[in-house]
């Protein structure tokens, strides 16, 4: 565990900035986090680990990527979170929180989702543990991510469209907080990333740190050492913190959080729009959705609409611990643009037979551009698989000239 906080602060970041009605629930959750997660009361963590193994399919492998290694002249390893049940790292956290809600005696689950991976994981965990679940999702994201919407419904969850604002993750989080404030006495809000009020950032990191715990042991086994660099894409930052947590104390391991540079790093303050989702690289300190952290905001403190080709990274904030680690110089925040991410999506699919989530593709785009600076051994966290993104990829690729992509006209007009 990289850092266990009891006051919810990571340097100046973190804290608890929520409506008063939620504070007692947050105190109750904090108490449950201390007892069940940190102290394993009633064998909670044992049950969590067992279910992660039997239901989730852990451990996921760390795979040597032969063709990428050849291409970049270094040894590239892939932590295959795409092979976790549901197809993304999100299940680690969703299963942990739904199980915790059960231990706390809650009767109902609400969650928000952007790309739909967290909603899907929560719906699966809720079905597995027999808890009613409602998921809030921006209308725009519902249109971008139909397969995941269908998966949530198949698992018995309600999907509530959010139409305010631009209809993306930011609005879905606000709407889920409203539901929680109304039904706080019997409901647990499964936040999908290392964001929100304490204890969520620390608790979600702990549930996700199984990624780096396994990867660290697997790298030792395969290479007799630790990687020189770990790369993970960063939106809210849950797979990032999961992949980094157990390496934070290993000073020889470089940690790279790869953000969505979108179409540009410039912002249009007048229109309140950032054409990227790179809050670590370009954001400023502020308070949003329960925590003080780095945000995309205008000079007045109004939150900007963010952008990424990947709806899973399309969020104007980032986890407070990650913001702190970047300020401390322990984590390097970098970014790549939409075009590079899409190209990397096709490259990984062709070279390794792994179709990555568009989120994950950002990490591979950074590898393509900076492989010679990262050292001899590089570990990339494959945070999820790309099936959910195929419609977006077809649409976005056909707008661009990506020479390694297959002929996109064939997808539109038959084969």
């Amino acid at each position, binding site marked *: 565990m990289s850092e266990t906080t009891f006051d919810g602060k990571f340097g100046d970041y973190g804290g608890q900035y929520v*409506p008063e*009605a939620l*504070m007692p629930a947050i105190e109750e959750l904090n108490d449950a986090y201390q007892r069940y997660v940190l102290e394993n009361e009633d064998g909670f963590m044992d049950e969590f680990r067992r279910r992660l193994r039997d239901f989730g399919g852990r451990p996921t492998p760390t795979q040597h990527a032969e063709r990428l290694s050849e291409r970049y002249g270094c040894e590239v390893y892939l932590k295959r979170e795409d092979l976790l049940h549901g197809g993304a790292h999100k299940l680690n956290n969703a299963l942990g929180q739904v199980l915790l809600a059960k231990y706390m005696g809650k009767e109902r689950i609400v969650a928000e989702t952007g790309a739909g991976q967290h909603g899907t994981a929560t719906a699966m965990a809720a079905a597995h543990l027999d808890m009613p679940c409602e998921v809030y999702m921006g209308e725009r994201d519902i249109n971008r991510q139909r397969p995941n919407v269908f998966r949530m419904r198949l698992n018995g969850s309600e999907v509530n469209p959010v139409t305010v604002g631009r209809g993306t993750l930011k609005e879905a989080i606000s709407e889920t907080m409203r539901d929680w404030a*109304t039904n706080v006495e019997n409901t647990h809000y499964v936040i999908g990333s290392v964001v929100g009020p304490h204890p969520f950032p620390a608790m979600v990191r702990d549930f996700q740190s199984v990624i780096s715990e396994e990867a660290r042991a697997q790298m030792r086994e395969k290479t007799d050492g630790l990687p020189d660099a770990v790369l993970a894409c960063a939106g809210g930052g849950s797979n990032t913190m999961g992949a980094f947590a157990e390496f934070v104390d290993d000073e020889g391991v470089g940690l790279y959080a790869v953000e969505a540079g979108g179409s540009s790093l410039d912002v249009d303050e007048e229109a309140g729009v950032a054409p990227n989702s790179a809050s670590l690289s370009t954001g400023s300190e502020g308070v*949003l959705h329960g925590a003080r952290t780095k945000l995309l*905001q205008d000079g007045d403190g109004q939150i900007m609409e963010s952008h990424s080709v990947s709806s899973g990274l399309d969020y104007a904030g980032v986890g407070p611990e990650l913001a702190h680690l970047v300020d401390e110089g322990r984590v390097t925040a970098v970014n790549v643009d939409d075009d590079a991410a899409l190209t990397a999506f096709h490259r990984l699919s062709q070279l390794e037979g792994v179709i990555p989530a568009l989120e994950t593709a950002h990490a591979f785009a950074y590898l393509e551009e900076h492989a010679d600076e990262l050292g001899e051994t590089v570990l990339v966290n494959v945070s999820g698989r790309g099936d959910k993104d195929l419609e977006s990829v077809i649409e976005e690729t056909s707008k661009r000239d990506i020479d390694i992509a297959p002929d996109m006209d064939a997808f539109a007009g038959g084969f």
Partner: protein
Amino acid sequence: MGNPALDAAFEGGAAFVPYLAAGDPDFDSSVEYVEALERGGADVIELGLPFSEPIAEGPTIQNAVVRSLEGGMTPDRFFEFVEALDVDVPLVCMTYYNLIYRYGAEEGPRPFVEKAAEVGLSGFVVPDLPAEEADPLREACDEFGLDLVFIVAPTTTGDRLDRIMDRVSGYVYVQARLGVTGAQDDVSGQTASSLDRLSEYDVPKAVGFGIKTGDHAERIVAGGADGIIVGSALVDIVAEGHENGDDVGAVASRLEEKARELKQGAERGFAQRAPEAERT
């Protein structure tokens, strides 16, 4: 700690505290609407400075926030708005912490509070700032003589109540029910128990969330509240007038009339309490 203007506003025991989002739907109309509330009997006015992510608000006020932001409302425009108002009652700024925190060149809430004092505001309500995170704002309010109002929810008990009451001044905002803002068809049954829990604390108790009619106001004040806070029922009048393209003067008249209904309801409620007050 505290501001004499707000103390005075609650002396009568039946204060009417209306809320409108400043600049909804535009600057000039909104000035007239706020002034109409005073004519209708407002004792304190809560003015919303819109934030793009109003997590404690229901649909009515969310939509008001969107209208106001689209109309160009910013923190600086908000301060101009306060200066443009011709009202004598104390004004309380209701906004989210990020706007307070980000204002001015210096980090933290002090520049915002200094400016608020300069334009004549009396205090703040900040729905996403719990007592645990409030000390920097409390200190700035003390420095400039402004009040910091806290919300007490039906779920707030024990240590949390003490923590809030250590920091509150002006009045305490008693949230009548769980959930987000929005007008309701009846008075929440949770109000009485919330007022009971607060009875030992010597600060005016104003009840909000869901109050819509003079009858609601009457029952809540009769039940022991020192004031009522009404937002969505008034914002609905602004929204309807805007959607129908009504004349600003006509909308202002309807707001004044609604304000009078609510104020008179509060006074009737207080009259019912008077014999009890005389006995004690």
